[in-house]
């Protein structure tokens, strides 16, 4: 944490040396691509038997996810081309653009598992809340930067208001998981931007009230609440009487636990092959890693995520301006929390909420949005001298 050398402003190198392309952090770019490759393998492993049993192509999910990864990489590279500071000034535009999507999905969106979060366009789905994560971080970073981090009570209130609107819309879907991710990102950006302690305390209270209110209102169906609370008591799970959520969690832990140190081997996990874990190619993708690749594979994947987060953290410190730092910090919070929540829920230490594991879970919108996020961070790194 302390060993990072920061370039001093006095020793600014010549212009040619500051050309963005000479400062690409290749490690940062390689990590999501590598994780995505592993993700494709895991999606394949968890879906091939079931697809074959239904007489479909074993590659159905892999092809669709592969396309999302390719689009995501392209989007990441595209985002790197334009100086991120141009976003700094146009954040209200982005913010205003994403709101109608969140409103629109409540009216027109397709519903899956009780949550109305998707636009169905022909064979493709688009989940605006995934994009909203990135946009909200950009917008909040932009807003804080425009006030040089000097957040008095009014500015802080406005920032909270900016963040609160999309969060409430996402909660209405209802998608508690994504709403909490948004809150964590907002909170982290505001902390680093220099918000005052008592303001932050009020913000935490507000967030708790909002989540508590949503959970105790009738926005959520009983089974959705069940998913949240099932991890609290895991002592006795009788598969005959367990609720879906308890069953899901028990099967998830069983699959991971059965992997042992070295795992059952790729395509050899019986719980995976026989589809014992519901939602395995999406939210519970980590159980495939756990069962087939064992502790070695699982901890390697966590190490890759940790490396990705470390690169982002490092760039946050290297960034040329507060906007860059906040952008990085927001993305860092987004990835860290999603990994912790997703992997944590499969192992029974976090409540079950529908959050994908970045770059691993099947799902186009999330994958593309995650690549865009990395592209933005890379952008900050490339232009830290210019």
């Amino acid at each position, binding site marked *: *944490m302390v060993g990072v050398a920061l370039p001093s402003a006095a020793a600014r190198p010549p212009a040619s040396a500051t050309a963005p392309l000479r400062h690409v952090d290749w490690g940062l770019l390689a990590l999501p691509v590598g994780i995505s490759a592993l993700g494709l393998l895991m999606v394949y492993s968890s879906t091939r*038997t079931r697809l074959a049993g239904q007489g479909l192509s074993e590659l159905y999910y892999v092809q669709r996810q592969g396309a999302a990864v390719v689009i995501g990489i392209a989007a990441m590279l595209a985002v790197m081309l334009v100086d991120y500071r141009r976003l700094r000034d146009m954040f209200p535009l982005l913010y205003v653009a994403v709101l109608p999507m969140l409103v629109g999905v409540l009216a027109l969106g397709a519903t899956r598992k009780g949550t109305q979060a998707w636009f169905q366009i022909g064979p493709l789905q688009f989940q605006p809340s995934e994009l909203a994560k990135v946009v909200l971080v950009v917008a909040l970073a932009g807003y804080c930067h425009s006030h040089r*981090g000097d957040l008095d009570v009014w500015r802080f209130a406005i920032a909270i208001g900016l963040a609160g609107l999309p969060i409430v819309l996402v909660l209405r879907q209802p998608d508690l998981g994504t709403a909490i991710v948004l809150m964590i990102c907002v909170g*982290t950006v505001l*902390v*680093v*931007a*220099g918000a005052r302690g008592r303001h932050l305390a009020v913000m935490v209270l507000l967030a708790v009230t909002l989540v508590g209110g949503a959970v105790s209102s009738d926005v959520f169906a009983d089974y959705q609440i069940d998913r949240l609370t099932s991890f609290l008591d895991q002592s006795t799970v009788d598969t005959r009487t367990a609720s879906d959520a308890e069953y899901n969690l028990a*099967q998830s*832990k*069983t*699959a*991971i*636990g*059965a*992997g*042992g*140190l070295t795992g059952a081997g790729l395509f050899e996990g*019986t*719980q995976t*092959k*026989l*589809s*014992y874990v519901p939602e395995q190619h999406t939210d519970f993708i980590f159980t495939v890693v*756990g*069962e087939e690749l*064992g*502790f070695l594979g*699982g*901890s390697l994947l*966590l190490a890759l*995520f*940790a490396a990705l*987060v470390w690169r982002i*953290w490092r760039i*946050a*410190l290297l*960034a040329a301006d*507060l906007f860059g*730092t906040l952008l990085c*910090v927001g993305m*860092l*919070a987004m990835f*860290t929390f999603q*990994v*912790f929540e997703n*992997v*944590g829920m499969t*192992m029974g*230490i976090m409540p079950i909420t529908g959050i994908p594991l970045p770059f691993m879970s099947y799902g186009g919108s999330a994958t593309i949005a995650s690549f865009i996020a990395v592209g933005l961070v890379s952008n900050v790194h490339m232009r830290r001298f210019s």
Partner: protein
Amino acid sequence: MTDTSRIRVSIVGVVVVALFSTLVGRLWFLQVGSGTVYVEAARENSVRVVQTETPRGRILDRNGEVLVENRIAWAVTVSRDLDEESLDGVIGSLSELLAIDVDILRERYDDPRGSRLAPAVLAVEAEVPDRARVVLQEQGESYPGVSVVPLNLRHYPHSTLAAHVLGYVGEINEDEMAEHKGDDYVLGDTIGRAGVEAAYEADLRGVPQSVTVEVDPAGNVVGDPLEKAPGEPGHDVVLTIDEQVQRVAEESLVSAILQAREVQNTDYEAGFATFAAPAGAVVVIDVDTGGVVAMASFPTYDPAEFIGGISEARYQELTEDESLFQPLLNRVTQGTYAPGSTFKLVTALTAMEYGYRGPDDWFNDTGSITVEETTYNNAGGRAYGSVDLRRALTVSSDAYFFELGRQFWRTWRFEDEARGLAMQTVAGQLGFGAPSGFELVEAEGRIPDPEWKHDFARVLYDDPQKISENEIWYPGDQINMSVGQGDVLVTPLQLANAYAALANGGVLREPRLSVEVRDSDGDTVRRTRSKRIRRVAMDPYRRQAIIDGMVGAVADPSGTAYGAFAGFPLGLIPIAGKTGTAQIGTSDDTKGDTSLFAAVFPANAPKYVAVAVVQEAGFGSRVAAPIVRRVIEALYDLPISPVVVPHGEASD
């Protein structure tokens, strides 16, 4: 960047490190720290073992005669893999072919006792006529998922013969599953429920064939079997029973009982009544090996009723309908009776071995003795005059033994407690009051003593007054016990086994029902030898005095069983016998006496003991002795004489 921001970014970094550490720690705990818990859970999830029973072993008599075997019955089964539509179709066409209602077939398919993995059995045996079998085998394609398979069912070539010895089988239930945890039973499996079928379950059952498969969460089999084990057929059990002797024992018991029911009970003074004679038992033991040669219990049942499951209503009838007198009960081992004079064996041994009275000491039998204002009479009030032990046993002088009972009590009360209770000690050594170690379920019986009486009064009564009256060990308790009355209870098997110890010179053995266990090739797997329990102190001269007295009971014209053995070649096969006639209940005589007879033969070189007991049938000499006579005739291939239960007065 401000210092505040820099510090806060660092804090974020610390939080990130903590979160990732938590994940790795939890991952380690689940995958490495939890050992094999989850590996086993995963296996339990997805691996199923489908078992098929192998043919159950047979049960043979000592000469290899088959008592229980298997027979093939054809069954129609339908696979569990059909979808609803084809299943409806198949059930419809099977209903037509077999002429069984669609609803009944559907019910059998849905029977929750059936495994979800094994095919469902829809029709068995008579429901599957040969014609239908041919149709199903030749036009299989019109009946998708349907198979005709052979089932192994129990078959009893000798019908109800030795039903209580053999026992019966049934489909295992949840309780039995729990009891046999670890033995790999599955619901629907056959299990022995009584008799040898239950006692030798582990041998008879064999090792089921098993196929290990993987299943998906819906229970469908996925892919090829992981493992196949062919199993092993059950082992045969060879019994000590002799089918021919068993048959004679059963037939004699039945005919003696039926005749006793025609005879007037003259003890019943309120009017005319015949003996009820509801039940009885016969047992024959080889005195050197402890092997049970015959074991009959009446009333009996048909083990074939249990094939393929007995209805709950019928089972309830067999166990609870009082007019049937509990046919499932094996009275040889589970019936307990007052032994009457047959128990004088214990009194005589005690008197001699503990120095109360020698075999040659004379006693003046005046027909009764009076102790503390209570008079104890000989049966019929007869006085036998001067008797020694031999004579007392031959004519069954109760007074001789009453007087011993009084001496025992006085010794207990005024001199030496242990010596005063010597009769209880001897009874215990002869195996009374405790299970004998036999293979089948046994009752314990009861040998009363002062301590038992003290406790039993508290079981019977709450009122302190009543308790204090009934907890005392009175002279009458010991006097009654000396003639096998009062609170003494024995099983016919215990009685026979005690006489066997007398017969072989004092060795008490565990009685045995089987000789050996054989595999399906006929090779011996295991011999089932009888264990010697203990040696009972028995001076040869004194032992011979008892046997001589018993020989007199059969051969002497004044002997109690002389009539029952009239015409029997006693010169060829001398018999030592003891009759017993035990009263049940003391206040009224509504129930007839228990008729008992115990025989040791040949008396000069004892080989067997036979005991017959008939409930509520009167004198032992009249009902029980003729049964034993016929059993002896069967053992020695003599012509079997007809059972004749005499009417009119008699003595015991």
